[in-house]
């Protein structure tokens, strides 16, 4: 019994330590990446160098029951600073008046557009254009889910580069220009580029644009702000640098249209369609022996509203977990397969470690270590010391990623905001992190039970 308990305790501690070590490595890689290729802060410089070179982009914005935010969101997209783009809004069979408010706000009229059903999707009910906004195309279709809506957009748009965004997100004015940079710089290799997602709760929005960056007042949104900072600047940047990026957020990602179509478009069978697409792109490119890049650029920022209620957040996190598990199951043959390069040997095993083993190990640690201590296997001194190291790593990683973000990107204008974020980065380790792991475990359980669907997401809309 003692031997089993000791082995378990050592396994938990080693796995936890491995996760922490990986995060520290990510931090080092990200810091090196940002110092060797520093972000271009002045938009005027990017515009001056790239404006004549950028390819046309189609912004695909799937909308389901977004009547409260859709007009503001579309206005913000139409106001983007970019030479050639079109905005394709896909009304995915909304049961509210999403199409009606769009028709009223933009004076929509029926149009027709030649297209091929290259990717499968639910029936299209109608296409609409706006006389005053020639860049806008609205697709009204039967409900089929986000992936289905994006496939419809991919079939109908014509630009060589597509940008998939969430209808409830706001892009910064020069986001497209910054995001498209890798496509200009390495036109034959780059197939996908991800940008940074930041939390918009607490920011002041006017006419679909962020006017003043602020921190959310709700503690749950504040905790997610730190979480997003860490996830994007640390994990995404590091993985993209070593060529093992497995996820570009569905809220903001740019793709070479032909590559996505060749890979088979978005999968309608998973709720993690964003991760699945990236894995599919890796698979398709590797299978045909192509030299390609899936990149992440920290500067282009997309602002999104995060849940402020525990129920909605829990639902979102469980869905993310289910999505990740569906993806790793679907692409299980790539894991530890050297034929898929670093994706097979690093990217996918990392998902197994963090998304599959991670929550189980961490929660098992919280439950078992006190049991071991109570049964005398682990002394109280060691129990406390391991707990302290685990928390210290968490705090250090959060605060250091915050530091990296601020040194390189200067996103929070007020020093007071930084102080609040620092405190949040410390506090998130006491309760929130554990709660997030519980939700992830619940997501695992849902996955095993075969739960389907997205679940309802309630939104408040942006603060004007």
């Amino acid at each position, binding site marked *: 019994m003692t031997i089993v308990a000791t082995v378990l305790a050592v396994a938990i501690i080693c796995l936890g330590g491995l996760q922490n070590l990986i995060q520290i490595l990510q931090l080092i890689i990200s810091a090196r990446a940002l*110092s*060797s*290729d*520093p972000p271009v802060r*002045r*938009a*005027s*410089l990017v*515009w*001056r*160098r*790239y404006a*004549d*070179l950028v390819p046309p982009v189609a912004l695909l914005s799937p909308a389901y029951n977004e009547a409260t935010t859709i007009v503001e969101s579309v206005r913000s997209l139409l106001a983007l600073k970019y030479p050639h783009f079109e905005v394709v809004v896909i009304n995915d069979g909304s049961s509210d008046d999403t199409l009606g408010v769009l028709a009223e706000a933009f004076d929509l009229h029926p*149009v*027709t*557009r*030649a*297209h*091929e059903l*290259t990717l499968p999707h639910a029936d299209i009910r109608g296409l609409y254009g706006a006389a005053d906004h020639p860049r806008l195309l609205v697709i009204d279709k039967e409900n089929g889910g986000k992936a289905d809506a994006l496939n419809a957009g991919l079939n109908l748009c014509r630009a060589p580069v597509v940008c998939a965004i969430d209808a409830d997100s706001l892009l910064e004015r020069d986001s497209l220009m910054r995001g498209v*940079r*890798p496509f*200009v*710089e*390495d*036109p*034959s290799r780059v197939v996908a580029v991800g940008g940074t997602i930041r939390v918009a709760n607490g920011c002041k929005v006017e006419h679909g644009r962020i006017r003043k960056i602020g921190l959310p007042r709700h503690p749950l949104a504040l905790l997610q702000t730190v979480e997003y900072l860490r996830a994007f600047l640390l994990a995404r940047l590091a993985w993209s640098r070593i060529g093992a990026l497995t996820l570009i957020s569905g809220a903001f990602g740019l793709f070479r249209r*032909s590559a996505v179509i060749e890979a088979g478009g978005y999968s309608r069978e998973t709720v993690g369609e964003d991760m699945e697409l990236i894995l599919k792109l890796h698979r398709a490119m590797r299978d045909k022996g192509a030299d390609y890049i899936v990149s992440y650029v920290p500067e282009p920022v997309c602002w999104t509203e995060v849940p402020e209620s525990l129920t909605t957040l829990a639902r979102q996190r469980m869905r993310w977990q289910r999505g990740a598990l569906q993806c790793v199951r679907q692409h299980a043959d790539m894991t530890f397969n050297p034929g898929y390069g670093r994706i097979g040997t690093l990217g996918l095993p990392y998902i197994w470690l963090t998304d599959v083993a991670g929550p189980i190990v961490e929660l098992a640690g919280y439950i078992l270590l006190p049991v071991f201590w109570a049964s005398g296997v682990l002394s109280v*001194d*060691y129990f406390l*010391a*391991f707990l*302290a*190291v685990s*928390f*210290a*790593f968490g*705090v*250090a990683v959060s*605060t*250091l990623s*915050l*530091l990296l973000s*601020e*040194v390189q990107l*200067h996103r*929070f*204008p*007020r*020093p007071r905001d*930084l*102080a609040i974020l*620092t405190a949040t980065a*410390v506090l998130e380790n006491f309760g929130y992190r554990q709660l997030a792991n519980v939700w992830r475990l619940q997501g695992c359980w849902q996955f095993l039970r075969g739960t389907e669907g997205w679940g309802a997401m309630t939104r408040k809309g942006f603060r004007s």
Partner: protein
Amino acid sequence: MPDRLLVLLWITATTLIVFALTLLLLLILVRWAHALLSRRRRALRDELLDLLQDLLSGTPPVQARFDHFRRDRLHTAMALIDLAGLVDGKELRLVLDRLNEEGFDRRFAGLVKSRDRRIRLIGLDVLGLLGGPFATHILQRAFDHQRHPGELVATAQALQLSGAYPDLGPLVDRITRPGSQLPGALTPFLATVARRRPAALVGMLEDKQPAPDLEIRIIQALGRARIEAARPALVKRLSSPRTQTRVATVAAIAAIGCPADTATLLACCQDPSPEVRAETADALGRAVVAEAPGHLTPLLHDLNWDVRFRAATALLRFGPAGIRQLDAAAKGPGGAPGTRTAAMVLAEQAV
């Protein structure tokens, strides 16, 4: 031994927390300083705008203004780069010339030697904007000694901005290293070279055998700049074994305009790659080559949607003759891809 491990664990935990929090505390202080500095940069930009107004109205500039600029060369440089995005070239030149007269080229030269890469890049950019013999001399020296490929391209870009032209041969030799990727900044740099000194790029295509990646970027740059002199060199590349090179070449030819002898281009309608066929359809449509409709009509029945669609839209450019061809295709066997594509393109055109 176990006690040592315990102590080590506690030391690790404490060190990590203290280290992270100290750095953040420091950051908050730096952030405060940065807020002050950005206010200063805005003030300097306003002063540069005031200087411009003085120069435009013929009022002698206030000397104290130059003292402000001298006191903070980094933020003046940043403000100057900002100003370059705000005012037009001639007006900017007035300010730059005046700053050169005041010896600012020498003050900014120090930025290029900074240890911080970001400051070095700002220095390069601002020296490129200033131009003049001294700035060019400093940039040339930086170019000769630069090792980092990205910075080398940035230096070349600055040199070009200053009016001097770096020798492309050595630049290319130094950035094309086996196993390493070309620096991203090379694309905008080549675009500028193609606009200002196209002969250098055409020469590279004709006389040298650039690495495939570089070759594609040169072809794209020449196409974007619509350099007619590049056409013969481009036509030769239509038979390249690399699909990407052929795609880029056809796209460049489409932008420049078709050569007098269209046979090679027309032959690309039978290229094994759908990307090349689609680009060829585009090129033929844009140039309205007389013999093209006969070659475009078979492309309407291609297996690839992109090829069919681009052939159909190319036919539209031929006016009534093209529309007749599309009409005929639309009346073909129902359900055939070519029939559907022609019908859809005609319907869209009608709306």
